[in-house]
């Protein structure tokens, strides 16, 4: 290989590029390339080569062999990506052994960063955004809440987070509904929510069709009309938001990033992203990748482009910067991103639906690890 | 001669259709019995009950002194019962010799052996080839069964039943569709069967029936219409009216 080639830094991006979750991969790619392009094509003065690997859905075995190949054959210096928790967990032993710094853009189970010293996370965890929401709900004189979450890892995480914090605040969770992951007809669950007599429903759903189905059922079965408040997190994600139509107006969520966040950094991010890929949505996945690339850039700068995992991670632990989502820093202990979480409401601005940030809860750590 | 098959008051209905009505008859060693009767009289259904494909609604079937009415097909085969099918029923893609060997392995109780190759049983391999030789199929030993001409498949059908070395053999229209030239070959094969074997044959070709059978049972509307020697049957006016038609 040519010397210039030998000096380039290799970054493996692992995510779903095919299958039902392929849009995550597309967003990772768009944001990462937008970031690199914004730095003049170089990070820390080095050429970078992005190598994409497709995991499909949650498929730890395949992910592991892909990452093994990235490390052994492609000799990547950094890894990024990861949408699903089991895929991230699968590579923990590999990156620990090979000392490869790995930035998690999305996978949101708290415990992941504990599994290897080389994990850094620029996404969010459900505890991080749910705990402030539970506190806020209690303050609104909402005493009785029903939780309705999709029955899989993140959903259970969300349910646990809400229940424990809401109880601590003196509220009651009157019923905890778990909705099977393959649910298409949400009518029955909405009827149960209605029958539970709660004042609000806290919900967590995986993106895409279930979001749509739930919110449609929420409106069609008259929940909104009968005054049962909607409390969510990623449900009004910018990727699906426009599909909801006017029925989404007024939905309340707590989240760390809104595409409508009002700051110069965010405007720059949105512009760069749209320039890279006009179809890409500015949402938690793309912002996770964008900030993830920022962390990688800082690690490259600190190590001078040489492969030195421990040094790179030591640098990452101290990072602090202005992200499109607001001010953030990497928690030195947990290697998880500490960020502001906002209360948002869906509003229609100029014919499009946006998540309007109405209140900031201030910087939040990963409450899940604090447990 | 010893009693091999004893059918007692067999009854069978398909929904509202009464196909077998109190049929009884016996088969002794050495018998050459022809079962004849109009189409739809219930001949095949009777064979199906005897061989265990169908369960009778009432009545009993005794095979070599054992009541087999409730037993499965496999147990009846082990007691020495073998049959052929009116409509060719073979494994189409297996080579002809393998087809025969399957029967031999089952007969010897080796069908569950799961380690040594089928080629490692030379005695049985040779026996299969000898059997094929007897039916003039030796050259086709490696031919997939479905590639054989129809008449040859009928021969394989017969060879399979014989491979089991049965005590009681049930043949359901073995000559159907076989030209008389080939039929002669089949007949020769039948004639060379061990004398103590009991054979029940269903056949509509009366020339053949009268040449082969030592006894004839006539079935009509599910019931036994007549049972006797070929000469008796030939002269029986009831049989003529129901089955034979013009004087044979």
């Amino acid at each position, binding site marked *: 290989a040519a010397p210039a080639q030998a000096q380039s830094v290799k970054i493996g991006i692992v995510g779903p590029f095919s*299958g*039902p979750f*392929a*849009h995550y991969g*597309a967003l990772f790619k768009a944001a990462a390339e937008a970031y690199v392009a914004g730095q003049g094509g170089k990070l820390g003065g080095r050429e970078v080569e992005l190598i994409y690997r497709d995991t499909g859905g949650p498929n730890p075995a395949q992910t592991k062999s892909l990452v093994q190949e990235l490390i052994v054959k492609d000799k990547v210096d950094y890894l990024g990506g990861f949408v699903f928790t089991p895929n991230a967990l699968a590579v923990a032993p590999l990156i620990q052994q090979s000392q490869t710094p790995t930035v998690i853009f999305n996978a949101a189970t708290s415990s992941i960063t504990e599994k290897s010293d080389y994990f850094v996370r620029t996404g969010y965890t459900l505890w991080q955004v749910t705990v402030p929401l539970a506190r806020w709900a209690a303050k609104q004189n909402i005493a009785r809440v029903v939780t309705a979450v999709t*029955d899989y890892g993140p959903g259970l995480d969300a349910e646990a987070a809400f229940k424990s914090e809401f109880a601590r605040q003196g509220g009651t969770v009157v019923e905890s*509904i*778990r*909705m*099977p*992951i*393959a*649910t*298409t*007809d949400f*009518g*029955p*669950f909405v*009827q*149960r929510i209605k*029958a539970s007599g709660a004042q609000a429903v806290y919900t967590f759903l995986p993106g*895409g*069709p279930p979001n*749509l*189905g739930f919110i*449609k059922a929420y409106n*069609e*079965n*008259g929940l909104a009309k009968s005054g049962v408040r909607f409390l969510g997190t990623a449900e009004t994600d910018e*990727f*699906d938001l426009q*599909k909801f*139509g006017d029925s989404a107006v007024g939905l309340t969520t707590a989240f760390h990033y809104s595409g409508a966040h009002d700051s110069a950094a965010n405007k720059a991010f949105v512009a760069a992203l749209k320039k890279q890929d006009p*179809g890409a949505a500015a949402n938690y996945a793309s912002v996770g990748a964008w900030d993830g690339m920022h962390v990688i850039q800082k690690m490259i700068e600190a190590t001078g482009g040489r492969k030195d995992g421990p040094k790179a991670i030591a640098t990452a632990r101290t990072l602090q910067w202005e992200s499109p989502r607001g001010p953030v820093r990497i928690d030195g202990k947990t290697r998880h991103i500490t960020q502001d979480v906002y209360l948002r409401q869906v509003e229609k601005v100029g014919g499009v639906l946006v998540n309007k940030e109405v209140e900031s809860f201030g910087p939040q750590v990963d409450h899940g690890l604090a447990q | 001669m010893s009693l091999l098959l004893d059918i007692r008051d067999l009854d069978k209905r398909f929904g509202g259709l009464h196909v077998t009505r109190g049929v009884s008859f016996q088969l002794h060693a050495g018998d050459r019995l022809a079962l004849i009767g109009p189409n739809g009289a219930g001949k095949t259904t009777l064979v199906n009950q005897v061989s265990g494909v169908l369960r009778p609604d009432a009545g009993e079937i005794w095979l070599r002194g054992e009541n087999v009415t409730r037993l499965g097909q496999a147990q009846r085969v082990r007691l020495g019962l073998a049959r052929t099918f009116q409509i060719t029923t073979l494994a189409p893609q297996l080579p002809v010799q393998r087809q025969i060997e399957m029967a031999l392995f089952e007969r010897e109780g080796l069908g569950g052996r799961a380690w040594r190759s089928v080629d490692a049983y030379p005695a049985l391999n040779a026996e299969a080839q000898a059997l094929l030789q007897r039916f003039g199929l030796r050259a086709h030993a490696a031919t997939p069964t479905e590639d054989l001409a129809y008449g040859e498949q009928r021969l394989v059908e017969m060879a399979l039943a014989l491979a089991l070395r049965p005590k009681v053999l049930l043949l359901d229209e073995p000559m159907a569709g076989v030209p008389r030239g080939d039929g002669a070959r089949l007949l020769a094969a039948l004639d060379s069967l061990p004398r103590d074997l009991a054979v029940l044959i269903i056949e509509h070709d009366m020339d053949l029936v009268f040449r082969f059978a030592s006894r004839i049972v006539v079935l009509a509307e599910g019931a036994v219409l007549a049972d006797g020697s070929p000469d008796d049957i030939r002269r029986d006016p009831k049989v003529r009216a129901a089955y034979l038609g013009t004087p044979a």
Partner: protein
Amino acid sequence: MTVLFNIAVDGLAYGMVLFVIAVGLSLTLGLMRFVNLSHCAFAMVGGYCAAFLVRQAQWNFWLAVPAAVIATAALGAVLELLVLRHLYRRKELDQVLFTIGLSFFLIAATNALAGPQVQLIPLPPGLAGSVDLGFRTLPAQRLLVIGAGLAVAGAAAWTVARTRFGIWLRAAVDHSGTASSLGIPIRVVQCASFAAGAALAGFGGILGAELMPLEPYYALKYLVLVLVVVAVGGMGSIAGSLAAAVVLGVIETASKYLASDWGSLFFFLAMAALLAWRPDGLLKR
């Protein structure tokens, strides 16, 4: 008590959606004996066409639906003429392989053309709201599905069982050569039947879109569900499919009301029990 009513209402509505999506496959699989695993891909095509016509081309909903159904039928007919007819006599596994490949291809094509997002079919004002049932409300669209499902069931069952065409179709499938020697135009019959199956799929895709949202992976996502309905109902039995869809729909709904923690366990347990009890279909005598 209310729970029971709720289960009945929601179960029926859900079951009818299952039925309209599955009935076309019951026909192709049961009557044509063609293992068409791309059935849901045809449903997706129908749905996407309708979504495109209503949203992009601004057609009237009531006009767009028949147009989309016809378009799906046409696609089915063309595919049948070009390729699928050569597969009727092939082994089932070949049919499986080909139609899975076709589904993959259509998924990729849909993804490339329309992107990965969910496609919505905007409903006309009359259908968008809810209907008050006294003790609760029900989306009006669900009533349309119930009505349309019953109509489809009636029409299809009548065509298959009572008309000359139904007899021709079944004859052509059993022994095509002999059927044609009796004067039956088998190619026309086969092509028309396949197109009809595709049309029903498209219709189901449109009507079911409220519950089973249209996205590229639609083609594989609901395949198992549809196969379950067809199997429990008995291949080729329209009344059976209807019964199976409603029974399974009610069971699934009941499990959502009463035991949702167990996910689809009860659905599959019920399916196994029903199949074990009636291996050839619910309504088989």
